[in-house]
């Protein structure tokens, strides 16, 4: 046991002597979380909106006023013709343009109804579809509330035929509710994703690099020619990174709750437990990598590239797994981060009880067992 603690002490000394790396390990997650939480988001903001309408219309003015009062849109101008609107889009002046037809006002009150086209710059398809979605919502809302109110008022007053044209539209009212994330904040989605990414990176990259470094400098040779059990060398290597990962985890959670204001809906205990399982799993991956490669560069490349990219792509952090081709969906099931992110979303955001994440926990535990077994089998207490 004494040998083991001497090892652990040595590993901590290595880490604390290398202050810059430690700073990156602790600082980078915080920066990423804040960055993704505030700056980088899939929410759309400050979209430049213009409108094209051949004639003045009080309804159009009121509608535009309503649109521009929201955070999402900024008024960019009125265009008199389609051509003018097109030019504005090309110049980048407007991202989205509402095109109202001729005689919008009078058609609105006629039986065939009025038309408004939403024309969006779809160079960025995500943004375009978001913009269109928001606008449709606002427009529908406007006509339901304002015009219907006016119409029904009018109808009550003078029984004019106008009410007959519009009133039927109000018979079916979709009632939309966004569960768990009513404000559609992207940080709700990103926090679990970033956690999955960072913990994987710290654990697998740092452990594998620190083991491979000993191989590279030759000190592994000296360690192997000692009575220390190889498993102790490995566990002693992992322990400090386990501690650091837990510190990072706590750091991320504090930032998430107090800075990003993402509430933790579910149980803290289970959330921490799931994270710890994931940390252990990632440490195992780092250990496996270190027993397979000989140089720090290759270890870094494998952990950085081969693990990072799938975590980004196939974990459901950026793109929904359900919309991938079947083969890739199968592949995604093998990504540890996918299970972690799913479990974290369920516990943290949806706040479900633990039995609903039992599958994720079991899968991660199983992966950890398999990877540890493989790493121990692959670990060689000789040089060849």
């Amino acid at each position, binding site marked *: 046991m*004494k*040998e083991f*603690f*001497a*090892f652990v*002490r*040595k590993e901590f*000394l*290595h880490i604390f*002597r*290398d202050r810059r790396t430690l700073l990156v390990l602790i600082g980078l997650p915080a920066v990423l979380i804040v960055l993704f939480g505030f700056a980088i988001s899939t929410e759309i903001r400050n979209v430049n909106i213009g409108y094209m309408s051949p004639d003045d219309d009080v309804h159009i003015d009121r509608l535009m006023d309503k649109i521009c009062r929201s955070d999402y849109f900024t008024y960019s101008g009125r265009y008199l013709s389609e051509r003018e609107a097109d030019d504005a889009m090309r110049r980048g002046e407007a991202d989205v343009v509402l095109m109202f037809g001729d005689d919008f006002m009078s058609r609105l009150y006629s039986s065939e109804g009025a038309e408004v086209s939403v024309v969006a710059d779809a160079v960025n398809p995500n943004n375009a579809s978001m913009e269109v979605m928001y606008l449709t919502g606002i427009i529908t809302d406007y006509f339901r509330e304002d015009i219907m109110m006016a119409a029904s008022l009018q109808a009550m007053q003078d029984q004019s035929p106008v009410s007959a044209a519009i009133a039927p539209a109000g018979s079916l009212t979709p009632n939309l509710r966004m569960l768990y994330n009513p404000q559609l904040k992207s940080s709700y989605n990103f926090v679990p994703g970033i956690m999955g990414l960072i913990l994987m990176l710290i654990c697998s990259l740092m452990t594998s690099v620190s083991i491979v470094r000993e191989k590279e*400098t*030759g*000190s592994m*040779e*000296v*360690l*192997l*020619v*000692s*009575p*220390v059990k190889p498993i102790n060398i490995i566990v002693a290597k992992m322990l400090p990174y386990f501690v650091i990962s837990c510190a990072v985890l706590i750091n991320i959670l504090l930032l998430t709750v107090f800075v990003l204001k993402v509430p933790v809906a579910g149980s803290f205990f289970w959330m921490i437990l799931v994270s710890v399982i994931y940390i252990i799993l990632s440490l195992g991956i780092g250990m496996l990598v270190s027993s397979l490669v000989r140089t720090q560069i290759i270890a870094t490349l494998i952990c950085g590239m081969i693990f990072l990219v799938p975590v980004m792509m196939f974990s459901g952090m950026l793109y929904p797994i359900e919309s991938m081709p079947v083969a890739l969906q199968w592949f995604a099931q093998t990504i540890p981060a996918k299970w972690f992110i799913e479990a974290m979303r369920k516990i943290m955001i949806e706040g479900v009880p633990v039995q609903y994440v039992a599958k994720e926990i079991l899968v991660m535990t199983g992966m950890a067992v398999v990877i540890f077994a493989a790493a121990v089998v692959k670990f060689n207490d*000789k*040089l*060849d």
Partner: protein
Amino acid sequence: MDSIAIHGLRKSFRKDLPPAVDLREDVSISKGELFGIIGPDGAGKTTLFRMLATLISPDAGSAVLEGLDIVRDYRKIRTLIGYMPGRFSLYPDLTVRENLEFFASVFGKDVGSNYALIGNIYCRLKPFEDRKAGNLSGGMKQKLALCCSLIHSPAVLFLDEPTTGVDPSSRRELWENLAQLKASGMTIVVSTAYMDEADRCDRVAMMKAGRFLTVDSPAAIVRSFDRPLLAVRSDDMFRLLHDLRAMEEVEKCYTFGDTHHVTLKPGADADAAAIASRLEPNHSGLEAGPVQATLEDCYMNLEEK
């Protein structure tokens, strides 16, 4: 009792290359012996050391260390041996003291219990105890590495080129330390590329291309050198080397300090005077005469066998 008994050892790393180590004979090293292995770079010294230190397994052959087989009982052997690899392999970011304490506790010992063994060496490092090992000079690094491989009081000590890249006075100190350790009954196997150091060993093995060419005491090796050996010098040493090599009686000619050593072909009918007279017209300040062979001469001439 033999401390180390080698019964042929072979190791090859790639099928298309000749084996790195290919010992065919039995070699035994007795307890408390200072055994030197000399050979050029690439002779297979490090591979042999790694095999004996149980770091790599031999393809064929076997060896017994303190009664333990290097393949079967490698875990037990690891508690008995000290191994100092050729390159500095301690932790440069830990201090001298931390390195020593770490290696002591790896073997379940503390620095105090075996301090007597390293005291002589460590006293030179004492003033730098709190310095990072990476900031030590080459000689100091080697001293520290030696301390770390001795701190658990091993029965057998393997030192792979401990004096490479170390200044002459540190080299002398190191050999004095080894002599003291040997006196305490430790078996020491040391490899070196410096012939003058090999003289300090009880026995040396001359190694080339994975084979032991000869294993004997330095004195016996020198005694067994039976060829006439000449030392020749002149003012134009470079040209002299060419001229000597061009002579047909000369078997081998190589630079040795500030002279050229020349061995003659067996049965060649020439002596120092004859050689000198033939070189005289082209060289000024020519001196030639017979010399006593040294270990290096033996080594240079063994190589070609």
